[in-house]
């Protein structure tokens, strides 16, 4: 039974990465109607950004937590301005292919220079060590990841669903022409939204740098699972993707305990089941 608690907690930790990443995807899909396949590559860039800040400029983890999402977010906005904006109004397939291509190029460039086995990034001193919870030894850093990502997720949800800015944004997706008539600069708002989604991915990258290796393919390995999370949660639903992210982390953790061989397929089995029963996803609405 103790082992089970430990697995639940570990699942929650992985779930927080799924939640952060799928949240970014859901924001971008919900507001821009773009299926952002470059999300994994941008997550990877976040981790690399933290690595460079530390090793080239001697800027540590805490500033990186703010700087890396901003830097990568700006990079994302440049991508949106120069490429993605021309695809608005076209079929989803175009956005998917473009972002998928971008992901391959970005990953290829990093792989060319850094190889595939990755670079080490140490846990910040303040978060080193762990505490004994009785049923398990919890590394403090992992506890921090769960708490911090939960706060970020809820803040993002609040921003989009409960503030005036969020309301404008949602209105702009529904009917851009009408919102423009109110004097709101819709293209700028869309660029900023893409930047926000990308920033969330980069933030997840910085959070994961001390746990996983900073590797060019760290995002490629994760992105497929995250897409499954978004599909299960319901495309474009903010709260849906947060809850599904955490829940799937837990389910995956339990699978690792009961039947480890299936741990990297269980998410997809669930996706198939959910699609069969409720094609719009758990929280999605048919339109």
């Amino acid at each position, binding site marked *: 039974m*103790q*082992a089970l608690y*430990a*697995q639940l907690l*570990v*699942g929650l*930790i*992985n779930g927080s990465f799924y939640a952060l990443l799928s949240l970014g995807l859901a924001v971008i899909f919900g507001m821009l109607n773009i299926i952002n396949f470059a999300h994994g590559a941008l997550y990877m860039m976040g981790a690399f950004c933290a690595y460079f800040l530390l090793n080239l400029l001697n800027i540590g983890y805490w500033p990186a937590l703010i700087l890396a999402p901003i830097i990568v977010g700006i990079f994302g906005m440049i991508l949106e301005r120069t490429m993605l904006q021309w695809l608005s109004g076209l079929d989803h397939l175009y956005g998917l292919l473009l972002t998928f291509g971008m992901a391959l190029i970005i990953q290829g460039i990093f*792989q*060319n*220079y*850094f*190889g*595939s*086995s*990755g*670079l*080490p990034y*140490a*846990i910040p001193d303040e978060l080193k060590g*762990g505490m004994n919870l009785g049923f*398990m*030894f919890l*590394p403090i*850093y*992992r506890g921090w990841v769960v708490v911090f990502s939960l706060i970020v997720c809820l803040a993002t949800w609040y921003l989009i669903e409960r503030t005036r800015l969020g309301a404008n944004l949602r209105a702009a997706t529904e009917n851009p022409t009408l919102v423009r008539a109110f004097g709101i600069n819709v293209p700028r708002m869309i660029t900023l939204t893409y930047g926000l989604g990308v920033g969330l991915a980069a933030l997840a990258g910085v959070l994961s740098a001390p*746990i*996983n*290796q900073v*590797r060019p*393919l*760290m995002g490629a*390995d*994760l992105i497929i699972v995250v897409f499954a999370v978004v599909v299960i949660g319901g495309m474009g639903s903010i709260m849906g993707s947060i809850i599904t992210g955490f829940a799937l982390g837990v389910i995956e*953790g339990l699978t*690792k*305990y009961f039947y*480890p*061989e299936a*741990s*990297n397929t269980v998410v997809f089995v669930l996706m198939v089941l959910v699609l069969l029963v409720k094609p719009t996803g758990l929280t999605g609405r048919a339109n």
Partner: protein
Amino acid sequence: MKNRIAALLLGTALTLAAGSLAFAQDKTVKIGSLSDQSGLYADLGGPGSTLAAQMAVEDSGLVAKGWKIDVISGDHQNKPDVGVAIAKQWFDVDKVDIIVDVPNSGVALAVNNVVKEKNGVYVNSGAATSDLTNAQCSPNTIHWTYDTYMLAHTTGQALVKAGGDTWFFLTADYAFGAALERDTTAVILANGGKVVGGVKHPLNTSDFSSFLLQAQSSKAKIIGLANAGGDTTNSIKQAAEFGIVKGGQKLAALLLFLTDVKAIGLETAQGLNFTETFYWDMNDDTRDFSKKFAARMKNGAPPTMVQAGVYSGVRHYLKALEALGGNPHDGLKVVDKMKSMPTDDPLFGKGEIQPNGRVLHSAYLFEVKKPSESKAPWDLYKLVGTVPGNQAFTPLDKSTCALLKK
């Protein structure tokens, strides 16, 4: 009339001579370096192995003697079906003579069958499974560098003898992990230890915390890592995070490469014991080669033992071809010639090839340096022991290879 007959005879003679010349002294060779070019094993093999093959060709001096030798590369993506498809195309369409490297035991065993069927030459340096020279041995295959039997009888044995008598395995769920766990288990049992449990994890897992918690609660003295590449680095890093080593359990990195140690970082990796058959900083020859190699690598990395094995294997292959006076394009003939010659090159020193295809050379027990002991970016190991080739690898009387029963 007389002149015409003479001219005709001369022409015939010339044609015959040219024909037999082409037959006996075909000096074209095509080498295929088949590897994981972008996944978790790309740094230990991949583009570096292709470079190693290329450098072996350059150092052989054969090109200056009029030989035409090409090196091509392919990406098997760690998928046996992809590896088999490339190998078949290489033999059938591209007329490749020899396939080298091939990390990932699953792919390596599948390609083994193709090379035998097509009568090519197979010098495997990247794969670990000892099956390549035992149950699944082939007259066309030579296994360089290392194997699971060697890893079990060096690192594994040393740990059991040092008192690590209870083991829990974290095993990569495919041919390699299974072979390494099997060979290590045999050593543990033979030395009076026991295996208290284990988990099979999917290849290329990023989060090991669940598995590590299970290993922790098993209370085994040793946690055996029967995995490789990125899986091993993640296991070791996360074990440190969960306080496993501090809690008194010891990690057995049964297979660890130079690039893995670099990726983990000395801070976390220091003190780990493991076995390799090559390290760049062994002697002047290895340092000299590694310097040239690193200068041509995009990330400036010196060769891993797998890449060094590719170099050594290709050098020996080209020596055999030179001794044959040309390329007969006949795998069996070339492999027989290779087995009949002792191996000798700047990286591995002197060695021999057994009839089952196993190359014997010394294995070295290393310990990862402390950060304070490391003086250069790739100064990572210190040598703690040497095991001679005939003790490190499967003795012939224990090999189950069918070739030995003739």
